């Protein structure tokens, strides 16, 4: 079998047995990346040299008889929001175009010690803000299923990378659906773990109370393998949970008999594409056939999820992104030009009113941020700054926190009746590039089914459950109580043992453009 078509579990096993070398797997991934990335733009940085060096080290350690980590030789792509030591980490922003962190993110450290091979950094919406990957400062990612369509976002690069077989697994981050939604639109499996399950150290913050790192792969079994590696307490992240990490990949066998899955009627009203509705209902039927029971439940506050999310997330973002001011790191405007124009002003006007004119410092801040950030990032900084301002805080931020608590309570109530909640991940299949870019509100609605899991801090997984008439993948989402990842992964894995939607591949070779 071509290593590019093997799952992470298969590669790790084969490399450990010596059936295939880590070098071969890495070469296969790199050559596919080389062939496809020009069309898909999934990667912002390809670390061929680093990948080959770690593959060779894995192979030589195996040759010496040393034991290898659980992801030995598995190529993995990392969303460019995660810090990689001395390797560019840009958040797809001009602001961090030249940033090379002096450290690895916690999850990257874990991947290295488990002998995964990091092939590169994937494209994304700038600072993870967006649902289509069109907000990247370095160009949009194209959906491998249809290059004229968006892959979803913000982890669009990671999703497209896995869908196109450029690497079997990738890491994404999910603040409001940024793993699950692009996974759904690209026909792969993406897991957003419980908030705090995976350390955020080295994850460049968008909205700290919502951000979570998670795996993206072609199957739930591969997601389980990666989660096993990256989950766990990190004393350097105060919000990381102290719970033990179960051996997820070995907890997939039990049947779904008696598992109660909730179905929210409100998900199937206006706005949901009928093709998606049909595929989702067929998926429910699969679960029923597998022994699960389906129950109607209500999530009365879920309809306030998007507005709540678009207050909480921008508020935190406006704060987290304050550090990009051109002083200590990141993009700085041409200060020589500012100083020159100030000198000219002084000679012209002789006496400028220092309270009216910006100081050179303030002008440096303004210009650095104006030049460094894209328009969606600026929009959210403005939203958040406004909502946190004196006089508006109670009406917006505080109110949003209250609704957030109600949404969390909805989940707690629901999980007294059911073990999992199922439904669509997106209202439609992948949409054409440019369709929503002129209308930020319609773009915000792509998170409709995903944001509530982040607001409540619970786990969620999305995986393919059908194809549209035009051949685009359709996704199903399952959500679980906090720390119920074993059940979440077991249910998705069971679905994938029964169906083969996750094995469908885009027909890439015919549609490739020449780079």
């Amino acid at each position: 079998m071509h290593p590019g078509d093997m799952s992470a579990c298969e590669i790790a096993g084969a490399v450990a047995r010596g059936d295939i070398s880590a070098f071969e797997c890495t070469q296969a991934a790199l050559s596919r990346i080389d062939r496809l990335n020009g069309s898909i733009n999934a990667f912002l940085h390809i670390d061929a040299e680093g990948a080959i060096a770690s593959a060779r080290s894995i192979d030589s350690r195996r040759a010496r008889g040393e034991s290898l980590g659980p992801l030995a030789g598995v190529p993995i792509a990392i969303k460019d929001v995660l810090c990689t030591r001395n390797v560019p980490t840009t958040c797809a922003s001009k602001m961090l175009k030249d940033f090379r962190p002096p450290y690895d993110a916690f999850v990257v450290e874990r991947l290295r010690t488990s002998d995964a091979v990091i092939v590169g950094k994937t494209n994304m919406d700038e600072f993870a803000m967006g649902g289509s990957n069109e907000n990247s400062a370095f160009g949009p990612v194209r959906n491998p299923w249809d290059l004229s369509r968006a892959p979803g976002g913000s982890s669009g690069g990671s999703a497209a990378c896995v869908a196109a077989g450029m690497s079997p697994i990738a890491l994404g981050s999910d603040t409001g659906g940024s793993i699950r939604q692009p996974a759904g639109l690209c026909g792969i499996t993406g897991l957003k773990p419980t908030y705090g399950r995976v350390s955020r150290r080295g994850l460049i913050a968008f909205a700290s109370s919502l951000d979570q790192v998670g795996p993206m792969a072609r199957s739930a079994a591969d997601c389980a393998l990666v989660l096993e590696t990256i989950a766990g307490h990190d004393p350097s992240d105060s919000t990381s949970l102290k719970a033990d990490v179960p051996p997820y990949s070995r907890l997939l066998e039990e049947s779904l008999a008696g598992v109660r899955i909730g179905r929210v009627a409100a998900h199937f009203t206006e706005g949901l594409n009928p093709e998606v509705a049909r595929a989702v209902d067929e998926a429910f039927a699969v679960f029923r056939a597998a022994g699960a029971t389906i129950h109607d439940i209500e999530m009365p506050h879920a309809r306030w999820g998007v507005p709540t999310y678009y207050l909480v997330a921008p508020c935190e973002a406006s704060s987290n992104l304050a550090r990009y001011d051109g002083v200590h790191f990141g993009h700085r405007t041409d200060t020589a030009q500012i100083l020159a124009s100030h000198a000219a002003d002084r000679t012209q006007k002789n006496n400028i009113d220092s309270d009216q004119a910006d100081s050179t410092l303030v002008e440096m801040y303004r210009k650095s941020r104006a030049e460094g950030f894209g328009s969606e990032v600026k929009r959210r900084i403005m939203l958040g700054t406004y909502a946190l301002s004196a006089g508006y805080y109670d009406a917006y931020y505080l109110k949003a926190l209250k609704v957030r608590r109600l949404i969390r309570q909805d989940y707690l109530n629901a999980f007294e009746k059911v073990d999992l909640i199922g439904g669509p991940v997106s209202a439609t299949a992948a949409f054409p590039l440019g369709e929503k870019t002129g209308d930020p509100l319609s773009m915000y609605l792509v998170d409709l089914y995903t944001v509530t899991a982040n607001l409540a801090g619970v786990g969620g997984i999305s995986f393919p459950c059908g194809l549209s008439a035009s051949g685009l993948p359709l996704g199903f989402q399952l959500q679980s109580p906090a720390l119920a990842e074993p059940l979440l992964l077991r249910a998705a894995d069971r679905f994938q043992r029964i169906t083969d939607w996750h094995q469908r591949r885009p027909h890439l070779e015919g549609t490739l453009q020449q780079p």
Partner: protein
Amino acid sequence: MMAAASQPTTSATTDVLSYTIVIGLEVHVQLLTRTKLFCGCSTAFGAAPNTQTCPVCLGLPGSLPVMNHEAFILAVRAAKALSCRIAEFTKWDRKHYFYPDLPKGYQISQFDLPFSSDGKLLVCDSKGRFAPRTVGIVRVHLEEDAGKSIHDESTGCADSRIDLNRTGVPLMEIVTQPDLRSPQEARAWLNELKLLLVYLKVSDCNMQEGSLRVDANINLHIPLPDGRIAKTPIVEIKNVNSFRSVERALLYEASRQWDEFNHTHAEIGSSPKQTRGWDDPAGVTRAQRHKEESSDYRYFPEPDLVPVTVSETELSLMTSAQGETPALLRSRLESQWSISAYDADVLVNQGIAFVGYFERLATILSDGKSASNWMQQDVMRMLNENTVAIESFPVRAEGLAALIAQVSSGAFDTSRARDIFSEMVKTGRSAAEVAASMGIADVGDDELMSLCRELVACNPKIVADVKGGKEQAAAGLLGQAKKKNPNVNPGKVRQLCLELIRAM
């Protein structure tokens, strides 16, 4: 023009007889932790710029803060000693502003739920210059320090440099009620606060190194002829580098506000709160430039840190190791060693090590009064003369006690003892060794008797005077005795000579 509430004066411009000075303080104290508040960097003072930094205090993307528990314990210890209520639940907030020495664009501080509030600290003046004053404490909270901007304007191109060693150093902010009524009280209260924090080992309160910083808020309450009280606009004084400067700045500011009120009659609320900087060499406060926008710090809960909850058990554990407060120590010394309140105050104000020395000395001597006198006169003089701290004082309490015992037994008089003590400090040798090397020896009874016989024989005039009832004339004999043998004890000489004369 200065007038305090207790010193009514008349004014040429108004009928006002007196005004009240109202002062509140905001004190920032650096906690004595080895590492910063949210990362593992050293807090040591004086390192080369930007050598004590890491991704967390530099605010690098992806870095996360983790609370230093030791800092929290120290802060709780201080707050308890200030009689504050400790919150069961406290959280961190982000305070936003842009400044080059604030790399994250926000400071991690505490906004609406500080870890402690509603405390008080009493200050007394042992010289009785003001009545005891209890100053209410609004709140004590924790926050991280910002970095240091170094502006070098000598080059003419306004070159600024940033040192981020201080960024993230743990600060405790103490905000008082406006309860102080004179600059003198303010200074005394700050001294008492500093003493407390140093005793509790919460901070070294070294103002030169910036581990204690004071902002003072002041205005005047002026009774008007119609019975109304006019309140002058509150001024916040910054940039005061010593407690003496605080007092001077407040004195100046009270006088300036009085003058200004007589010119403008401006009252509180007529303009935004003004910030004035203290120019120490010039001895004046100067208005600082208004910020372009009124500051909206957009506080919101810090999502990278978890709230801190403190149970009763944890609280008692945290404060179990707490030392004696200066106030408690003063009253204990007073009763245990039968010394005056004034003496106890002087001793306690010298610091905990000094008190420790005193108590060892008093214990050996079983005499608090004598120990207190020696500490206040001789030990303090030696410390000052040799600019040495009590911790490294070369004479141990045991050694000094031996010397004092010999004085009490009459071996040497006090002035000889001082010479010996001074030599002990210089050489580190014992009283006996020093006495021997200086040729100071106990003069034997026979030797002393023959000396006194000789003196009486050679001084018929003095003998006659004494016999005539003028006992004080015997003093003339003492000088001669000292000349003949510097080691004689003048008291004994006097006693023996008087006995000899009476027997004649």
